[in-house]
């Protein structure tokens, strides 16, 4: 992670005291309950922020993406139907807004032809100085494989949910995850995890 990250010093969120499921909260928001939306926001705020930071590598950009994501989510109400994990719905929004934020930031520094390379540019996780060998090994993975790996084992999404979130076929998700694990298995920096 970037050296300028601050440890979160915020108090416990209101979400910790609310035992309602996401489905119940969405139903409440559809009924006009703003407090229920606040619970959802606090429940997923840190995940969205971390994901946005993963894509943008910039604190301010991540916060902008956080706001834009929940504004986008808010516009779906009333009438929003939660059919899967809410992360599945939020992920593509965060990704697309992050790409737009990176493109906007690069526009001030790049000429037009260089903009075409923005999306191919590896996410900042690759360019930042890694703190551990695991991070270095992750940095060597192609971005799409790294994302699938993290969504699976860090964000705990099912493969089908990852496919829906990333808007790719399930087979593609499986292929990327398989290749990512194979690469880490063969990487001297992470081989020990597989040999135990």
């Amino acid at each position, binding site marked *: *992670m970037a050296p300028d*990250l*601050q*440890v*979160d*010093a*915020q108090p416990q969120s209101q979400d910790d005291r609310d035992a309602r499921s996401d489905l119940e909260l969405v139903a409440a*928001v559809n009924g*006009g*309950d*703003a407090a229920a*939306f*606040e619970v959802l*926001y*606090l429940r997923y*705020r*840190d995940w969205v*922020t*971390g994901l946005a*930071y993963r894509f943008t590598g910039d*604190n301010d950009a*991540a*916060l*902008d993406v*956080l*706001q*834009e994501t*929940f*504004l986008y989510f*808010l*516009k779906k*109400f*009333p009438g929003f139907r939660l059919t899967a994990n809410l992360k599945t719905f939020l992920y593509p929004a965060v990704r697309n807004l992050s790409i737009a934020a990176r493109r*906007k930031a690069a526009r001030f520094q790049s000429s037009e032809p260089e903009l075409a390379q923005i999306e191919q540019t590896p996410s900042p996780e690759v360019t930042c100085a890694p703190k551990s060998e*695991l*991070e270095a090994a*992750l940095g060597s993975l192609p971005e799409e494989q790294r994302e699938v*790996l*993290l969504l*699976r*084992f*860090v964000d*705990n*999404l*099912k*493969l089908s949910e990852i496919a829906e979130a990333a808007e790719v076929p399930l087979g593609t998700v*499986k292929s990327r*995850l*398989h290749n990512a*694990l*194979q690469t*880490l298995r063969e990487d001297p920096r*992470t081989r020990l*995890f*597989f040999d*135990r």
Partner: protein
Amino acid sequence: MRTPSKQEEPDDVSLLAPSELVSALKRLPQERLFVPRAVDDAVVRAAREHLAGGSSGKPQLRGGSFSEWLRLSISWKVWLGASVAVMVCAFVAYQFFSPGRGRTFGVGNPFASSRPVSETVQAPLPGNASSERRMDILDAFTLARQLKSGPVHEPRWDVNHDGIVDERDVRAIAVEVVRLDKGGRS
């Protein structure tokens, strides 16, 4: 030891990860990005306004990003400008090409005679040397155009003196003009 996660598909061994690797991955994002209270307040406020129906329909962040405001204002202005341009073009076209009407500002068809029938042109009597000016073929065109718009009641246009201003007067003017021209050249 592999992690038998509840999310994994059965029999998909190649997609399993060692538990130590999963633990190490989960430890990576422990340091969370600090979210200022102002950001939380802005989102919550937008939610309250939107869900209470107090907004105009689209939730907005107060003091939202400048780029968002600029995008909205540009799109509004573009539409307004386009509407005004269409209206101006329609008005100009109506002014120029309508048959005798639409002379709100005295503008008419530039390709037609600019002399309204009711004014100026004192259609002189044929051959009258003391007339204000000599007739010409434009008088015939002018009268013909006005007759298409409606009846003309100016007595001076009743060239054939039959008590009615009609296409026969147009023909009379044309004939007289030709006669005078031939007479002028001969």
